[in-house]
């Protein structure tokens, strides 16, 4: 009987959480920058989510799941790539030679997916995640603050810095 109840639990868990699989994978992939790691982390995150699903009473399944995906991603990032995280708040990463690129030129290239991908991948993880959450998932500042575990007031400033940095990196690639 317990077996059947647990199967029903899995059923309702899947019904609520599997629709967010693409969102989960997209976030993990941007954070980890590697296909295999992203898949492993998403699988692990779903398992963790299932184990604590009894504690989920909210209505925002996507934000709840993405929080777990994010935490699981950082566990792996911290373990494997201490280097990646040290650059996080290094705002002084030197990007030379982009001063001559005008906003109009950047705009011309702003639909170049490959170029954007390369520039995004250069950003620190905090910037990659906030850009993915806002630009791709269209999440509100409030949802982002919950997922990234930062105060709501920090979301706007971090997003602004992430966008400025991304523009800078795009310009740097164009002037090469």
């Amino acid at each position, binding site marked *: 009987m317990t077996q059947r109840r647990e199967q029903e639990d899995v059923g309702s868990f899947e019904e609520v959480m599997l629709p967010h*699989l*693409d969102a989960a*994978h997209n976030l993990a*992939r941007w954070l980890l920058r590697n296909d295999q790691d992203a*898949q492993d982390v998403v699988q692990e995150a779903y398992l963790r989510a299932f184990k604590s699903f009894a504690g989920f009473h909210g209505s925002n399944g996507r934000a709840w799941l993405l929080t*777990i995906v994010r935490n699981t991603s950082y566990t792996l990032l911290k373990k494997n790539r201490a280097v990646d995280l040290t650059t996080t708040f290094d705002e002084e990463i030197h990007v030379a030679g982009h001063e001559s690129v005008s906003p109009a030129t950047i*705009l011309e290239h702003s*639909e170049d997916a490959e170029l954007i991908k390369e520039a995004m991948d250069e950003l620190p993880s905090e910037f990659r995640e906030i850009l993915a959450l806002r630009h791709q998932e269209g999440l509100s500042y409030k949802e982002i603050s919950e997922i990234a575990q930062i105060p709501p007031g920090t979301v706007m400033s971090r997003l602004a810095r992430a966008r400025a940095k991304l523009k800078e990196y795009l310009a740097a690639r164009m002037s090469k």
Partner: protein
Amino acid sequence: MTCDEAIKLMDGYLDGELDPIANQTIEQHLRECQKCDEAYKTHSALIRSIGKATPYYKAPSGLRERIQASLREEIAERSPRSVSRNIPSLFPSLIQSKQSERRAVLFGTQWNWLALAAAIVLAAIIAFNLAPRLRRPGADQFLATQLIASHVRSLMANHLTDVASSDQHTVKPWLDAKLDFAPVVVDLSSEGFPLVGGRLDYLDNRPVAALVYQRRKHFINLFVWPAESGSVSADKRITRQGYQLLHWVDSDFNYWAVSDVSDNDLQAFKQVFEKQLPRR
């Protein structure tokens, strides 16, 4: 509004996340200042275009099946444990077996079967009581490590509180809005443990509430999350790396207090905390 202020708010305006008054102020500024208006137009066009063109990594085929398979594996592994979970429902059969014992005496049959049933029930009860204890030490040590790390991090990274307030009526709604449970928040200033604020933390694979209290110059992090129903356990005291940890469970919540105050202080803290809990 100055141009600097307008630029600071530009991203919030672009995202439609400003309050109505800030919205109006920035709109007025953009009407009046051509330079900012142009900067805004370029910025928003660029951000929208970049947002649309950013590659979206959909889950590859097969990942869904992998996840579903791992979930089924998880419940398959659980089922041996689920036997011990069912123990409470065995108690009725114990009562029943007493009744049948009487019948058995009357009819003078089947003693062996009763003895066997009693032995099984007894073994199950022992297993049920022992199993959690056998499992605990390792898990507790691991959790203790996480708790101390969280405590140290909160003091080091200048991130003691997300919401800094000694008013329990400010801290509690803030936490309630961010968690899937509603922790009890009480100020203990009158008892010498003023409330400093609250914070979200992540422990034991779940978001938890961290209430921050002060004892003289020292801070106490009180981590709170819902207790599993029916979990009963004695208070636990752990001393590690110069930190004191005190754990207790009430009908609703798991509590872990972590601090560098003395063990006595932490015990006193627990007592006044419990005394201040609203009666339920």
